[in-house]
């Protein structure tokens, strides 16, 4: 139920939003202090395979809850209403084509068992992979090699675009866009290749936690596969 005071005065919600943002930033700082970006990325990649091929819907839903919790603790922005409505859309779309036993009818809408289970499975998979990615891909992740150096350079230019102080007005859009490109391109060079990265020392807790998550995902996969056996 909405708080009548904040509903009447939208500005009253601002301190709450600020507090939430600060809390998220603190969680992100703790998370980044615990996990190295590559450890997380490797764990995320491994876990995503186990999750994707999980045949049991209840186990997949349980893993989804685990990954949602990890994504929340990582300080990434998580919108539960968006997750709910996207999932609802996926399930509804799958129900449009009736497959399997009829569970119930409501006018022209026929809810069938196979279509419902497939829709739920696809929705959980879709959203679960998003939360695995949110938890395991950090902005500090550096991709190695020549390709990685181009991506890193693109991020340097991206920062310049964000910091650009000029304006893009509709009347002079093309000239303004051109000025932006020239300003970003001709800005003084900043080191982007081979620059010594600050590598904070992290204890073994991050590696242990990442390994535990991957182990849970694969244990669930094994259980799911055994579950299907006669």
């Amino acid at each position, binding site marked *: 139920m909405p708080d009548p005071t904040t509903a009447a005065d939208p500005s009253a919600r601002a301190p709450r939003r600020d507090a939430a943002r600060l809390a998220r930033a603190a969680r992100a700082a703790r998370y980044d202090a615990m996990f190295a970006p590559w450890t997380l*990325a490797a764990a*995320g*990649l491994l876990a*995503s395979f186990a999750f994707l091929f999980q045949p049991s819907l209840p186990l997949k839903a349980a893993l989804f809850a685990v990954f949602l919790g990890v994504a929340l603790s990582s300080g*990434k922005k998580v919108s539960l209403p968006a997750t709910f409505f*996207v999932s609802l*859309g*996926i399930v509804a*779309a*799958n129900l*449009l*084509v009736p497959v399997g036993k009829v569970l119930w009818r409501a006018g022209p809408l026929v809810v069938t068992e196979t*279509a419902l289970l*497939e829709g739920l499975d*696809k929705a959980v*998979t*879709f959203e679960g*992979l*998003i939360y*695995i*990615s*949110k938890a*395991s*891909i*950090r*902005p500090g*992740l550096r*991709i190695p090699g020549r*390709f990685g*150096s*181009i*991506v890193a*350079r*693109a*991020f*340097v*230019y*991206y920062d*310049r*675009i*964000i910091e650009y102080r000029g304006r893009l007005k509709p009347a002079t859009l*093309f*000239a303004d*866009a*051109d000025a932006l*490109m*020239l300003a*970003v*391109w*001709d*800005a*003084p*060079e900043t080191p982007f290749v081979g620059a010594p990265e600050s590598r904070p020392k992290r204890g073994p807790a991050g590696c242990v936690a990442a390994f535990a998550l991957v182990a849970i995902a694969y244990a669930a996969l094994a259980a799911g596969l055994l579950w299907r056996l006669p």
Partner: protein
Amino acid sequence: MTRSTPAPTESAAAPRQAAAPQGSPRARGRPDRADVTALLGAFCFFLSAIEYMIPKPLPFMRLGIANLPILLAADLLPLPWFLVLALVKVVGMSVISGSLFSYIALFSLAGTLVAALVMWGAKRAGGRRIGAVGVSVLGAVASNAVQILLAEVVVFGQAARLIAPVFLGMGLVTGALLGLFAERFAETSKWYARAAGRPDA
């Protein structure tokens, strides 16, 4: 955008150096393709961030404005660098949004690569007979079509066909608008002329 741009040559480098402000990296040397690729990749990230703020019914249903730098690159970069730009866009955007291991990255990869290849093929096959609007519309519709196919396989099932007309229609409209912008920008932009190695910069 209808003209084909000559590959940068040593003779073209001199005017470009003269046009660049003194002390800038471009004044010190000829811009290499990695540099142009990185800058266009950065604009893909920026436009993607803008697109992220536009409400959409599903996370992967995008207008495609982040493909604008790829459209511009069709005249600036050879095919290998052009494909590198497409990959930089997908990987960078996935890292920024934290969706690298999700279906969203898969949709983005498929849509971007198909759009890039179709735009490149249309540009090379059509030559002067096809403008930026045509190239852009073909790329946008191809990108949306492949995303609908993927949506049918991994998310929606046959119901994906129900959203196909709207999604393809969106591709037509945004593709045409992006093509118009790219054509005008390529004609008037000093940066574009410098990146293409044209002496009138």
